[in-house]
């Protein structure tokens, strides 16, 4: 019995051997009884045995009376069980006939690749631009004071005195860190308040906060979509969505960027597939994952069409709104408000609090039926320390500002249009993105044919502008990791703090740079 207990004590360590032992144990103990019943039925003279002795006697009797083929079969089974008991449970590798010496030689011989490939010292991205002081409207990059056209500080809340004050008060009360995940004394009253406020702001039932913007959608997707499920995703989806898809191990189908016909084609294909195997189809969950305003293309997704497709093909919609939350719509509620789509039609909305809210972290919101599931299944929620309370307080104050003065979104949208217009006609560069997008891309009209050279040209434009007090940045990507690598571009970010004059100056400066550098 002791082995039995041991076996369960460390099931996690010894799973393989033990499952087998277990089978054997139960197998060997039930078999005689089965036999007994078989014979008891064939010979009605035998009473149902009551005592242990009776069983034994019966077993012996049964043994004598059983036909030979039966005994042989039993014998083979027993032998097989013994074999199972003593054979190794499974082999990681096929058997090898190598001698110990040969193995040693192989081990001696093996040379691994270096941990990381060497990096050349003058790689263009190795040395980051250094920002001294706060990255607010006026930003000091590499020692030069510039006007910021690069940080996603759309509403200019990053150096808001009100936000800072609330953060300070929170710091005075709670200290800095939370020293634990949400489950283990890492839930602060401010977290609950922020969740409630976000839900109220977005007009959804519930919201859940994460301590890192990137981890939000990347954790949310695998919380629902599992192996075997299907996700339809836009080709231009951002990197954190891509990581979420990968972590979910679901079946991923990409449709062309913002192309609803292509999406419908895929959905129809799936419908045909489902008709072939309706039983399977009943358990395959399906999702459409899109961004409200794409960070990679600065386009808005056609949400009303997506909602139509949702109900037509019964697919759930997950919407990533990091770029559109606090930007689009009359009250900054994002792309649902922009289109006047009922927010309950969207199954899950996620956004980070690092852009418009100028704090740290991210959130998901939607119906409680959907959102609450993440409290036990969102990996980045359960297994990570919670958001420092001062950052939650800062986000709450930022929400206050947004609620008190919805005019701020009007201002931002006007500035976005202004920048979009001012950048038109820059020689050699094309503006990519919607007029309403707060983070546009400037791409080369004519690529040199090599990504490295393109990037060099764009970098030269960025440097030229930086010398003239306009801070821009290249849009950065991991070239080998992106599923569909966007073309090289300069990012131009609009914030409410930029004045008319500054925007004109920036546009002028970029034009000059383009003329000079692109010839």
């Amino acid at each position: 019995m002791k082995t039995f207990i041991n076996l369960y004590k460390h099931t996690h360590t010894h799973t393989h051997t033990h499952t087998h032992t277990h089978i054997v144990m139960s197998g060997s103990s039930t078999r005689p009884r089965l036999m007994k019943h078989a014979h008891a039925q064939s010979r009605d003279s035998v009473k149902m045995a009551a005592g242990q002795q009776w069983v034994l006697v019966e077993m012996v009797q049964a043994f004598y009376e059983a036909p030979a083929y039966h005994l042989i079969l039993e014998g083979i089974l027993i032998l097989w069980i013994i074999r199972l008991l003593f054979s190794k449970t499974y082999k990681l590798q096929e058997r090898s006939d190598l001698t110990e010496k040969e193995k040693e030689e192989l081990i001696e011989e093996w040379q691994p690749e270096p941990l990381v490939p060497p990096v050349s010292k003058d790689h263009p991205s190795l040395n980051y631009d250094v920002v001294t002081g706060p990255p607010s409207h006026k930003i000091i990059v590499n020692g030069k004071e510039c006007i910021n056209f690069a940080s996603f500080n759309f509403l200019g809340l990053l150096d808001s005195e009100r936000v800072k004050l609330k953060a300070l008060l929170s710091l005075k009360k709670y200290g800095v860190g939370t020293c634990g995940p949400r489950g283990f004394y890492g839930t602060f009253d401010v977290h609950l308040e922020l969740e409630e406020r976000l839900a109220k702001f977005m007009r959804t039932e519930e919201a859940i906060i994460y301590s890192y913007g990137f981890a939000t959608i990347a954790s949310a997707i695998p919380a629902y979509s599992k192996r075997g499920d299907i996700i339809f995703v836009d080709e231009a989806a951002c990197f954190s969505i891509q990581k979420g898809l990968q972590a979910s191990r679901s079946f991923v189908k990409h449709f062309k960027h913002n192309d609803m016909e292509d999406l419908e084609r895929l959905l129809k294909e799936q419908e045909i597939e489902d008709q072939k195997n309706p039983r399977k189809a009943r358990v395959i969950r399906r999702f459409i994952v899109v961004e409200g305003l794409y960070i990679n293309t600065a386009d808005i997704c056609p949400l009303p069409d997506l909602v139509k497709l949702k109900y037509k093909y019964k697919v759930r919609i997950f919407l990533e709104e990091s770029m559109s939350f606090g930007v689009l719509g009359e009250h900054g509620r994002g792309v649902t408000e922009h289109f006047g789509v009922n927010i309950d039609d969207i199954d899950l909305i996620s956004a980070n609090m690092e852009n418009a809210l100028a704090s740290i972290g991210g959130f998901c919101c939607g119906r409680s039926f959907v959102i609450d599931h993440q409290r036990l299944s969102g990996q980045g929620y359960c297994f990570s320390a919670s958001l420092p309370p001062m950052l939650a307080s800062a986000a709450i104050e930022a929400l206050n500002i947004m609620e008190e003065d919805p005019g701020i979104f009007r201002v931002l949208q006007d500035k976005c249009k202004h920048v979009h217009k001012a950048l038109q006609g820059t020689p050699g560069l094309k503006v990519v993105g919607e007029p309403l997008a707060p983070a546009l891309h400037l791409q080369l009209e004519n690529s040199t044919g090599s990504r490295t050279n393109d990037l060099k040209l764009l970098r030269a434009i960025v440097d030229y502008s930086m010398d003239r007090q306009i801070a821009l940045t290249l849009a950065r990507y991991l070239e080998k990791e992106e599923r569909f690598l966007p073309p090289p571009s300069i990012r131009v970010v609009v914030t409410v703090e930029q004045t008319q004059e500054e925007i004109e100056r920036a546009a002028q400066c970029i034009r000059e740079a383009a003329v000079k550098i692109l010839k």
Partner: protein
Amino acid sequence: MFEAVSSFSPNYSCTVSIENVSMGDYQRNYDPFVESFEETPLLVAVLTYMGYGILTIFGYLRDFLRDWKFEKCHLAREREEQKDFVPLYQDFENFYTRNLYMRIRDNWNRPICSVPGAKMDLLERVTPDYNWTFEHTGNVLKDVINMGSYNYLGFAENTGTCADAASECTVKYGVGVSSTRQEIGNLDKHEELEILVARFLGVESSMAFGMGFATNSMNIPALTGKGCLILSDELNHASLVLGARLSGSTIRVFKHNNMQSLEKLLRDAIVHGQPRTHRPWKKILILVEGIYSMEGSIVRLPEVIALKKKYKAYLYLDEAHSIGALGPRGRGVVDYFGLDPSDVDIMMGTFTKSFGAAGGYIGGKKELIDYLRLHSHSTVYATSMSPPIIQQIITSMKCIMGEDGSTLGQERLCQLSENTTYFRRRLHEMGFIIYGNNDSPVVPLMLYMPAKIGAFGREMLKRNIGTVVVGFPATPIIESRARFCVSAAHTREMLDKALNAISEVGDLLQLKYSRKNRHGNEGSDSFSFLESHQD
């Protein structure tokens, strides 16, 4: 009394008392390496299974009643318009949540409204419907002794130099950054922090990230890929598992802290190469943690390093819980064993715990960090760390290093180590089964039975002590436990109060399972379990 048991423990599943004096080539500067995982008593195991059995039967009964509308179902429901969609959850998926977790849900997510220091204030909650919903009464449970937060060195403070420096930094920088490190979110503060962290760890270079979890999940994929092999301890944290999975490498799991298992996997891997193709592996990466947060065990680092060197593998050491909490200078498990940090290829850790901040780091050779600066998912796509958080880390780290001109940091380290020894010794003497290493400030106390999870948490809170209780799936099904995290901020008086309460609750719930000799021996001798059964 101390017999050197072979360092490769042949049967790890029984009670283990491993004494590594024979380990040879590293210098031990601490107490002997004693780790114990006392065997589950037979009766307890049987009763635990029965407990789960009863819960499951009642679970089915309740589900049946809910289905037939005899019992009110409090679960949020799918909206009518989407009833004909494929269900978002399989019904059985939430069986455990509905019928087991929900009964004792009040033990988790307890909202706090103060610094998570040695004492904390909790918001009082009541539930009108058996934990389906909670209401806050508005009352505050004051001065609950905090045995749950990972506040090892007591840097979770709202006064003092760290808080002051963080305040100053907030005024200057604000809290956000709104850009990534590679774009325009690389502040001078980030660079300052990274130089300091490298110096603290004794490595060439380092890099800091905004979230500890993401430090693992977003950097491991940058280091290995297809054709590489990852050997991972079976009890590794979810973030390491996720990182390994996202990397696309082949993953094999070795038994917890079991060097024999690790060596076997290493040998097999090199000899046989990749499955089917038999091409040699491009590289092999071993993933281990410094202190395992659910077991309280410390990684057998000297042996791991010996193996790694012998088989030319690379070593990724996650010091989430050990950095600051172990070693005479608080430099983590490497310091604890007196080893050379350059023997660990990738030193990872978090700032959440000992430093009372948030985020994580990776330290190592300059080539490694340069490569990560270019290829880490975090530097390209994630917003960089918030300046006041950085300031908290800088100030607390300097304090540990003694660079603030005081001995406060050193005192905290001593206090933590003293508290750990005291707390563990007393619990052991009381007759509880506690897991893990004698020097680990993470102290799991075994509860086993599912009903005792809830009872322990509640009874402790009644006595004004906040503890963490964990059960399946965070632990194996019968090994539910309570976990205490000792802090340097705990005074002897607080620890005594907590210990008395634990003893009282232990008697009440009959938790003193240990059958080891508990009285008459003083100090570490009481930890020698060599009379234990080995089968």
